[in-house]
Protein backbone atom coordinates (compact mmCIF):
# COMPACT_ATOMS: atom_id res chain seq x y z
CA UNK A 1 0.00 0.00 0.00
CA UNK A 2 1.52 3.35 -0.98
CA UNK A 3 1.66 6.52 1.15
CA UNK A 4 -1.29 8.24 -0.54
CA UNK A 5 -3.51 5.20 -0.02
CA UNK A 6 -2.60 5.05 3.69
CA UNK A 7 -3.22 8.77 3.97
CA UNK A 8 -6.61 8.42 2.30
CA UNK A 9 -7.67 5.62 4.67
CA UNK A 10 -6.46 7.64 7.66
CA UNK A 11 -8.34 10.76 6.47
CA UNK A 12 -11.53 8.73 6.13
CA UNK A 13 -11.57 6.98 9.50
CA UNK A 14 -8.93 8.89 11.53
CA UNK A 15 -7.63 5.51 12.71
CA UNK A 16 -4.17 6.10 14.18
CA UNK A 17 -3.13 2.58 13.24
CA UNK A 18 -2.72 3.68 9.61
CA UNK A 19 -0.94 6.89 10.58
CA UNK A 20 1.50 4.75 12.60
CA UNK A 21 2.27 2.55 9.59
CA UNK A 22 2.80 5.61 7.41
CA UNK A 23 5.09 7.44 9.84
CA UNK A 24 7.15 4.33 10.64
CA UNK A 25 8.30 4.33 7.02
CA UNK A 26 10.02 7.67 7.59
CA UNK A 27 11.44 7.31 11.11
CA UNK A 28 14.98 6.77 9.82
CA UNK A 29 14.80 9.68 7.38
CA UNK A 30 13.34 12.09 9.96
CA UNK A 31 16.03 11.02 12.42
CA UNK A 32 18.72 11.53 9.76
CA UNK A 33 17.50 15.01 8.81
CA UNK A 34 17.26 15.94 12.50
CA UNK A 35 20.83 14.73 13.02
CA UNK A 36 22.00 16.86 10.10
CA UNK A 37 20.56 20.06 11.54
CA UNK A 38 20.75 19.48 15.30
CA UNK A 39 24.08 17.55 15.37
CA UNK A 40 23.14 15.76 18.57
CA UNK A 41 21.63 12.29 18.86
CA UNK A 42 19.37 12.96 21.87
CA UNK A 43 18.10 16.23 20.38
CA UNK A 44 17.46 14.42 17.10
CA UNK A 45 15.45 11.69 18.86
CA UNK A 46 13.35 14.34 20.63
CA UNK A 47 12.85 16.11 17.30
CA UNK A 48 11.55 12.90 15.69
CA UNK A 49 8.91 12.54 18.40
CA UNK A 50 7.91 16.18 18.12
CA UNK A 51 7.63 15.88 14.33
CA UNK A 52 5.40 12.81 14.78
CA UNK A 53 3.14 14.81 17.11
CA UNK A 54 3.06 17.77 14.74
CA UNK A 55 2.22 15.58 11.75
CA UNK A 56 -0.58 13.82 13.68
CA UNK A 57 -2.02 17.21 14.64
CA UNK A 58 -1.73 18.76 11.17
CA UNK A 59 -3.26 15.77 9.41
CA UNK A 60 -6.34 16.14 11.63
CA UNK A 61 -6.85 19.60 10.14
CA UNK A 62 -5.51 19.54 6.58
CA UNK A 63 -5.32 17.31 3.54
CA UNK A 64 -1.82 16.72 2.24
CA UNK A 65 -1.26 16.07 -1.45
CA UNK A 66 2.40 14.96 -1.49
CA UNK A 67 3.11 13.41 1.87
CA UNK A 68 6.85 12.80 1.51
CA UNK A 69 7.71 16.34 0.38
CA UNK A 70 5.43 17.80 3.03
CA UNK A 71 6.98 15.63 5.76
CA UNK A 72 10.45 16.76 4.69
CA UNK A 73 9.35 20.39 4.94
CA UNK A 74 7.78 19.84 8.39
CA UNK A 75 10.93 18.07 9.66
CA UNK A 76 13.31 20.70 8.31
CA UNK A 77 11.21 23.59 9.61
CA UNK A 78 10.98 21.98 13.03
CA UNK A 79 14.78 21.55 13.20
CA UNK A 80 15.37 25.12 12.02
CA UNK A 81 12.96 26.41 14.67
CA UNK A 82 14.86 24.45 17.32
CA UNK A 83 18.11 25.96 16.11
CA UNK A 84 16.64 29.45 16.09
CA UNK A 85 15.62 29.04 19.71
CA UNK A 86 19.16 27.93 20.53
CA UNK A 87 21.10 30.37 18.35
CA UNK A 88 19.13 33.57 18.02
CA UNK A 89 20.49 35.66 15.16
CA UNK A 90 22.26 32.87 13.31
CA UNK A 91 19.30 31.53 11.37
CA UNK A 92 20.08 33.48 8.21
CA UNK A 93 23.22 31.38 7.77
CA UNK A 94 21.22 28.17 8.07
CA UNK A 95 18.58 29.30 5.62
CA UNK A 96 21.28 29.73 3.00
CA UNK A 97 21.96 25.98 3.24
CA UNK A 98 18.37 25.04 2.51
CA UNK A 99 18.02 23.08 -0.74
CA UNK A 100 15.61 24.44 -3.33
CA UNK A 101 12.30 22.60 -3.77
CA UNK A 102 12.29 20.00 -6.51
CA UNK A 103 9.65 20.19 -9.21
CA UNK A 104 11.29 17.97 -11.81
CA UNK A 105 8.46 15.48 -11.82
CA UNK A 106 5.91 18.20 -12.50
CA UNK A 107 8.06 19.42 -15.37
CA UNK A 108 8.31 15.92 -16.76
CA UNK A 109 4.55 15.41 -16.65
CA UNK A 110 3.78 18.73 -18.29
CA UNK A 111 5.06 17.86 -21.73
CA UNK A 112 4.56 15.03 -24.17
CA UNK A 113 7.17 12.38 -23.66
CA UNK A 114 8.50 12.33 -27.23
CA UNK A 115 8.87 16.12 -27.40
CA UNK A 116 10.54 16.16 -24.01
CA UNK A 117 12.98 13.40 -24.96
CA UNK A 118 13.91 15.17 -28.19
CA UNK A 119 14.54 18.45 -26.38
CA UNK A 120 16.54 16.72 -23.66
CA UNK A 121 18.84 15.12 -26.25
CA UNK A 122 19.42 18.53 -27.80
CA UNK A 123 19.98 20.16 -24.42
CA UNK A 124 22.48 17.46 -23.44
CA UNK A 125 24.61 18.42 -26.42
CA UNK A 126 24.53 22.07 -25.32
CA UNK A 127 25.99 21.29 -21.88
CA UNK A 128 29.68 21.58 -21.12
CA UNK A 129 31.66 18.43 -21.83
CA UNK A 130 32.16 17.64 -18.14
CA UNK A 131 28.47 17.98 -17.31
CA UNK A 132 27.41 15.99 -20.38
CA UNK A 133 29.79 13.14 -19.62
CA UNK A 134 28.90 12.95 -15.93
CA UNK A 135 25.13 13.08 -16.55
CA UNK A 136 25.38 10.39 -19.23
CA UNK A 137 27.46 8.08 -17.07
CA UNK A 138 25.34 8.64 -13.91
CA UNK A 139 21.82 8.42 -15.34
CA UNK A 140 22.13 6.52 -18.59
CA UNK A 141 24.98 4.12 -17.91
CA UNK A 142 24.08 3.88 -14.20
CA UNK A 143 27.63 4.31 -12.92
CA UNK A 144 28.54 5.20 -9.32
CA UNK A 145 30.36 8.43 -8.40
CA UNK A 146 33.60 6.50 -7.92
CA UNK A 147 33.34 4.74 -11.28
CA UNK A 148 32.70 8.09 -13.01
CA UNK A 149 35.64 9.64 -11.20
CA UNK A 150 37.89 6.78 -12.33
CA UNK A 151 36.66 6.97 -15.94
CA UNK A 152 36.90 10.76 -16.25
CA UNK A 153 39.88 11.49 -14.02
CA UNK A 154 37.82 14.02 -12.04
CA UNK A 155 37.60 13.97 -8.24
CA UNK A 156 34.39 12.92 -6.45
CA UNK A 157 33.36 16.47 -5.60
CA UNK A 158 33.77 17.59 -9.22
CA UNK A 159 31.66 14.63 -10.39
CA UNK A 160 28.84 15.48 -7.95
CA UNK A 161 29.03 19.13 -8.92
CA UNK A 162 28.88 18.35 -12.67
CA UNK A 163 25.82 16.12 -12.15
CA UNK A 164 24.05 18.72 -10.00
CA UNK A 165 24.82 21.65 -12.30
CA UNK A 166 24.24 19.63 -15.46
CA UNK A 167 20.81 18.59 -14.27
CA UNK A 168 19.89 22.18 -13.39
CA UNK A 169 21.24 23.58 -16.67
CA UNK A 170 19.47 20.92 -18.65
CA UNK A 171 16.16 21.87 -17.02
CA UNK A 172 16.72 25.53 -17.92
CA UNK A 173 17.64 24.65 -21.54
CA UNK A 174 14.67 22.32 -21.98
CA UNK A 175 12.25 24.89 -20.57
CA UNK A 176 13.64 27.52 -22.94
CA UNK A 177 13.21 25.17 -25.90
CA UNK A 178 9.68 24.27 -24.85
CA UNK A 179 8.67 27.89 -24.42
CA UNK A 180 10.08 28.88 -27.81
CA UNK A 181 7.94 26.26 -29.64
Amino acid sequence: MDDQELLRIYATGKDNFYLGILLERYTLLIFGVSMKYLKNEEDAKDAVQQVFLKVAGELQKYQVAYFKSWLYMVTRNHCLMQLRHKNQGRHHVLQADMPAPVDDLALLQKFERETLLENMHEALQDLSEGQRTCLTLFYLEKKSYQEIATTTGLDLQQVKSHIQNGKRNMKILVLKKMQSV
Partner: protein
Amino acid sequence: MNDLTSIWQQEDDLTPEQVKAYLEGRLQGDALAQVERIIHDSPFIADAIDGLKSLPTADHLDEVVNTLNKKLHQQLAQAKGKRQRRKIPSLYWSIIAVVLILLLCFLGYWIVSSYF
Protein backbone atom coordinates in the same frame (compact mmCIF):
# COMPACT_ATOMS: atom_id res chain seq x y z
CA MET B 1 21.23 2.66 -23.18
CA ASN B 2 18.61 3.89 -20.74
CA ASP B 3 16.03 6.59 -21.43
CA LEU B 4 17.26 10.18 -20.98
CA THR B 5 14.08 11.11 -19.08
CA SER B 6 15.38 8.97 -16.17
CA ILE B 7 17.26 12.15 -15.19
CA TRP B 8 13.95 13.55 -13.96
CA GLN B 9 12.31 10.41 -12.69
CA GLN B 10 12.41 9.56 -9.03
CA GLU B 11 13.55 6.03 -8.28
CA ASP B 12 12.16 4.06 -5.35
CA ASP B 13 13.02 4.89 -1.78
CA LEU B 14 15.92 3.28 0.02
CA THR B 15 15.30 0.48 2.47
CA PRO B 16 16.88 0.78 5.95
CA GLU B 17 19.19 -2.12 4.96
CA GLN B 18 20.41 -0.19 1.90
CA VAL B 19 21.00 2.90 4.06
CA LYS B 20 23.04 0.90 6.57
CA ALA B 21 25.00 -0.86 3.85
CA TYR B 22 25.73 2.49 2.18
CA LEU B 23 26.82 4.13 5.44
CA GLU B 24 29.10 1.20 6.23
CA GLY B 25 30.62 1.32 2.72
CA ARG B 26 29.47 -2.22 1.90
CA LEU B 27 27.88 -1.39 -1.49
CA GLN B 28 29.65 -1.75 -4.82
CA GLY B 29 28.97 -1.61 -8.55
CA ASP B 30 25.33 -1.36 -9.66
CA ALA B 31 23.97 -1.45 -6.10
CA LEU B 32 26.13 1.53 -5.11
CA ALA B 33 25.27 3.46 -8.30
CA GLN B 34 21.54 2.92 -7.72
CA VAL B 35 21.72 4.15 -4.12
CA GLU B 36 23.76 7.19 -5.19
CA ARG B 37 21.17 8.12 -7.83
CA ILE B 38 18.35 7.88 -5.28
CA ILE B 39 20.28 10.03 -2.80
CA HIS B 40 21.22 12.55 -5.48
CA ASP B 41 17.61 12.95 -6.66
CA SER B 42 15.90 13.31 -3.28
CA PRO B 43 16.78 16.26 -1.02
CA PHE B 44 14.98 14.49 1.86
CA ILE B 45 17.12 11.35 1.55
CA ALA B 46 20.29 13.36 0.83
CA ASP B 47 19.81 15.41 4.03
CA ALA B 48 19.06 12.28 6.04
CA ILE B 49 22.17 10.50 4.76
CA ASP B 50 24.27 13.59 5.58
CA GLY B 51 22.92 13.51 9.12
CA LEU B 52 23.35 9.76 9.58
CA LYS B 53 26.95 9.99 8.36
CA SER B 54 27.69 12.21 11.37
CA LEU B 55 26.91 9.32 13.75
CA PRO B 56 30.06 7.61 15.02
CA THR B 57 28.64 4.21 13.98
CA ALA B 58 25.57 2.86 12.16
CA ASP B 59 25.47 -0.21 14.45
CA HIS B 60 22.71 1.01 16.72
CA LEU B 61 20.50 2.57 14.00
CA ASP B 62 18.01 -0.33 14.14
CA GLU B 63 17.74 0.05 17.91
CA VAL B 64 17.18 3.84 17.63
CA VAL B 65 14.51 3.39 14.96
CA ASN B 66 12.75 0.59 16.88
CA THR B 67 12.68 2.67 20.08
CA LEU B 68 11.32 5.70 18.21
CA ASN B 69 8.67 3.56 16.52
CA LYS B 70 7.58 2.12 19.89
CA LYS B 71 7.24 5.65 21.28
CA LEU B 72 5.33 6.66 18.14
CA HIS B 73 2.74 3.95 18.75
CA GLN B 74 2.49 4.96 22.43
CA GLN B 75 1.94 8.59 21.41
CA LEU B 76 -0.74 7.61 18.91
CA ALA B 77 -2.48 5.32 21.44
CA GLN B 78 -2.50 8.15 24.01
CA ALA B 79 -3.89 10.59 21.44
CA LYS B 80 -6.64 8.09 20.57
CA GLY B 81 -7.47 7.62 24.28
CA LYS B 82 -7.71 11.39 24.78
CA ARG B 83 -10.04 11.75 21.79
CA GLN B 84 -12.31 9.02 23.17
CA ARG B 85 -12.31 10.56 26.65
CA ARG B 86 -13.23 13.90 25.10
CA LYS B 87 -16.16 12.27 23.31
CA ILE B 88 -17.66 10.80 26.54
CA PRO B 89 -18.38 14.15 28.34
CA SER B 90 -19.98 15.63 25.22
CA LEU B 91 -22.24 12.56 24.93
CA TYR B 92 -23.01 12.80 28.66
CA TRP B 93 -24.15 16.44 28.38
CA SER B 94 -26.23 15.66 25.28
CA ILE B 95 -28.16 12.96 27.20
CA ILE B 96 -28.76 15.34 30.14
CA ALA B 97 -30.03 18.03 27.75
CA VAL B 98 -32.45 15.61 26.04
CA VAL B 99 -33.78 14.34 29.43
CA LEU B 100 -34.28 17.94 30.65
CA ILE B 101 -36.17 18.93 27.48
CA LEU B 102 -38.42 15.87 27.79
CA LEU B 103 -39.06 16.68 31.46
CA LEU B 104 -39.98 20.28 30.61
CA CYS B 105 -42.33 19.10 27.85
CA PHE B 106 -43.98 16.63 30.23
CA LEU B 107 -44.26 19.30 32.96
CA GLY B 108 -45.77 21.78 30.51
CA TYR B 109 -48.28 19.23 29.29
CA TRP B 110 -49.19 18.32 32.90
CA ILE B 111 -49.73 21.99 33.89
CA VAL B 112 -51.82 22.74 30.80
CA SER B 113 -53.95 19.61 31.19
CA SER B 114 -54.42 20.09 34.98
CA TYR B 115 -55.34 23.80 35.14
CA PHE B 116 -57.03 24.60 31.79
